[in-house]
């Protein structure tokens, strides 16, 4: 299958592209050819097999379908479209008609990556690829190889965006298995603030290989919501890299609800004193879905804090993987870090592998992590049933409560409510109206 990527790469080459991009792409495809798809013998992929992706052929989506994709369809498929600026992509191609970039404060640059490559090449050259490492990560290298489209957001010093920026990635191959390699680059200058909502949805079987990079300048405050609601026969691989400067705050909410196979690699480097990272996550899978969350918090400098809470609900024959690494480098004294992974198993066939890692090379630190796995507490179910609530509803209420912990941390109200509704509907088919 590697050959088909090579051919697709050659076909997608654009001689008009800036020189640095052509070099990056070339390096990417070479790196990918050298690495190949990861396999389960690798520690990082011990519990997740990408065989279903490696053994299939995917086509790069053409831009012809873009025109056929309508506003109604977007609203039907998207989880929640809030008022405010948005960029919409279909099969990796920018959809200008459905996008809305009005009302952005002066100086803010928010556009498709393809456009930015023409207009902001210098900024892209300086920042692209700096937050994620493709050295031993085949999927990042593959994304590099097809680096053409995606979104670019630049926040000048001190800008505060009043509304969230929504990025909607839709995959819809109309029968063909499409692949997209979207790349998102956010450059937030000092003291800027923004909320970014990335949503991935689609129909049918397809493969999304996304890379998101965020460079948070001094004192920048970035809230990043990633909503993965891909179709249940889709494959989703996402690599997110964040580099944080002094006193910056990065908050991530990662929700994995869809896809047959989903893998998130979220890494943040606390690269200067006073930086803080908060990573929240919820994965809720059933059937034969497989979801894998890898997070890596790199405490590179002293006086940084991080907090992480990932919760998982596994039903049916689904499989969950959590791998959370906290690295405290030799001089990162006064680090404070907390990590927690809680899992709820609803069926006998579901499976969870969790591996919270602490790697600490500094002494003056406070780090702890915890992981729990269990099923619903029989006493709690009994309590509800003794009050006349039937067993199924009682279980749903308790599961909902378990999940809403994470959802409640999101500040975007319409989205939060929509998610709560969705979770409730999923737990109680047919009772959505009551929510």
């Amino acid at each position, binding site marked *: 299958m590697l050959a088909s990527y090579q051919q697709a790469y050659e076909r997608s080459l654009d001689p008009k592209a800036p020189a640095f991009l052509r070099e990056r792409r070339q390096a990417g495809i070479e790196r990918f050819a050298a690495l190949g798809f990861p396999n389960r013998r690798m*520690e990082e992929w011990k519990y997740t097999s990408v065989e279903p992706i490696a053994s299939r052929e995917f086509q790069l989506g053409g831009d012809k379908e873009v025109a056929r994709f309508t506003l109604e369809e977007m609203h039907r498929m998207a989880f929640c479209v809030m008022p405010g600026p948005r960029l919409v992509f279909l099969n990796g191609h920018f959809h200008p008609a459905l996008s809305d970039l009005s009302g952005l404060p002066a100086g803010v640059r928010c556009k498709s990556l393809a456009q930015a490559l023409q207009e902001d090449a210098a900024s892209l050259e300086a920042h692209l690829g700096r937050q994620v490492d493709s050295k031993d990560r085949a999927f990042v290298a593959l994304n590099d190889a097809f680096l053409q489209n995606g979104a670019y957001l630049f926040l000048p010093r001190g800008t505060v965006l009043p509304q969230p920026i929504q990025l909607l990635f839709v995959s819809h191959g109309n029968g063909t298995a499409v692949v997209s390699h979207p790349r998102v680059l956010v450059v937030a200058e000092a003291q800027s603030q923004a909320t970014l909502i990335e949503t991935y949805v689609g129909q049918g079987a397809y493969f999304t290989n996304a890379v998101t990079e965020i460079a948070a300048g001094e004192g920048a405050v970035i809230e990043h919501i990633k909503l993965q609601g891909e179709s249940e026969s889709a494959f989703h691989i996402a690599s997110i890299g964040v580099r944080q400067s002094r006193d910056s705050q990065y908050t991530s909410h990662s929700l994995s609800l869809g896809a047959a196979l989903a893998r998130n690699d979220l890494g943040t480097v606390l690269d200067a004193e006073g930086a803080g990272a908060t990573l929240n996550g919820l994965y809720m899978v059933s059937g034969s879905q497989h979801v894998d969350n890898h997070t890596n918090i790199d405490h590179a400098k002293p006086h940084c804090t991080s907090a992480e809470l990932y919760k998982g609900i596994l039903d049916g024959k689904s499989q969950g993987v959590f791998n959370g690494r906290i690295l405290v480098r*030799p*001089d990162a*004294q006064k680090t404070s870090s907390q990590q927690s992974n809680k*899992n709820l*198993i*609803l*069926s*006998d066939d*579901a*499976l*969870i*592998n*969790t*591996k*919270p*890692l*602490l*790697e*600490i*090379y*500094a*002494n*003056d*630190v*406070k*780090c*702890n*992590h*915890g*992981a*729990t*796995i*269990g*099923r619903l507490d029989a006493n709690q179910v009994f309590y509800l049933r003794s009050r006349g609530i039937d067993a199924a509803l009682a279980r749903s209420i308790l599961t909902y409560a378990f999940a809403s912990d994470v959802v409640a941390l999101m500040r975007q109200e319409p989205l939060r409510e929509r998610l709560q509704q969705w979770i409730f509907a999923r737990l109680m088919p047919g009772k959505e109206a009551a929510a």
Partner: protein
Amino acid sequence: MTETNQALEEITGQEYKYGFVTSIEEDRIPKGLNEDIVRLISAKKNEPPFMLEWRLRAYRHWLTMQEPTWQNVRYPKIDYNDIYYYSAPKQKAKPKSLDEVDPEIRETFNKLGISLAEQERLTGVAVDAVFDSVSVGTTFKGKLKEMGIIFCSFSEAVLEHPDLVKKYLGSVVPYSDNYFATLNSAVFSDGSFVYIPKGVRCPMELSTYFRINASETGQFERTLIVADEGSYVSYLEGCTAPMRDENQLHAAVVELVALGDAQIKYSTVQNWYPGDKEGKGGIYNFVTKRGKCAGENSKISWTQVETGSAITWKYPSCILQGDNSVGEFYSVAVTNNYQQADTGTKMIHIGKNTRSTIVSKGISAGHGQNTYRGLVKINKGAEGARNYSQCDSLLMGDKCGAHTFPYIEIKNSSAQMEHEATTSKIGEDQLFYCKQRGISEEDAVNMIVNGFCKQVFKELPMEFAVEAQKLLSVSLEGSVG
């Protein structure tokens, strides 16, 4: 603060107490490893053919294996052909009683605080003393025999109880298990063998004391403990080695089998020579320890205090096969200077309502690197399995590291498991509190560290608990800033 540190550092500089060498006539076989060596070792011990076959199978399998690299410890490559695989003190005839044991060896054990002769009368702990490759004496044999308990050296067991050995050898750690266990299976020289018959509660602690004396040798011993239905045994293990600039390999295998309602308690105080302050020399302690709770309601409990060795790499594990069986793991691992430790446990839940508890305390000082690596695996059939894991690390000094790598694999929804880990340094407010009440910094640190480890120490038998506390304070003094 710095002055106290200097004073403390001087104390840390204390030489390793057990670093002396006994000069004694040795019976050595040539250096290197090949089939002839394996045959020679077997011949030296007059082993029956089944043992030799087993050794050769292991050796041939070992040749196909590769040394593992996934561990979080670093060491130069070992040349397996540069080791003497067998070295034994020369004895004219097999000693019939302890009085006949070479006086030099008895003196060595006296120096180590284990007087083979007096031990019998004074402490009431039965000891099997292993000197380099062979067992030199076992105390209390007679008394134990009356109860049907077999406690002897492994070579003796092979000759006198071949059926038991045949039945249980390799049943928990097969010869093909891992690189070092396979090597051990091929060349193991001696060790201890314990069999507790049905319904017998062993009246005293059984203990093995391992001593490496000869240079350029590896020690490969094998311990097999079988507790038959309804029996109980508590077993202690201690070890020391001389101070040398070279690194010596110690690759042991310990197998425990607990049948229905049986209980085995296995305690280790590991104090191999850790190398000097620059990290030169010391023992590579690459050990495979595993227990199988084969019967219902059985219990295996591991307690270890790891203060020695240049590199410690071991995971005492429990296979919880019988329903309602219980596995426990209590560990204190200390790394100072350039010591490295990658240790933890594996709890494999197979039977219903199996329970396991893991309490691991890691202390790193100097340039020490301390890794906890553990696996909790709950299989599909392990209905109602329960695990509680707690891994705490204490850091002293800014050059050391503490790492926690727990692997948790759950395939049963009724399972409940909790894992918790914390890493911190000794609280300045705790130190201040103690100092304010007139307790010196050194004593305060000792007190806090002992408190940190208390959960594990209380699991140790009396004799060991005192030794462990002392050992800990010597290992750590001077490492607090």
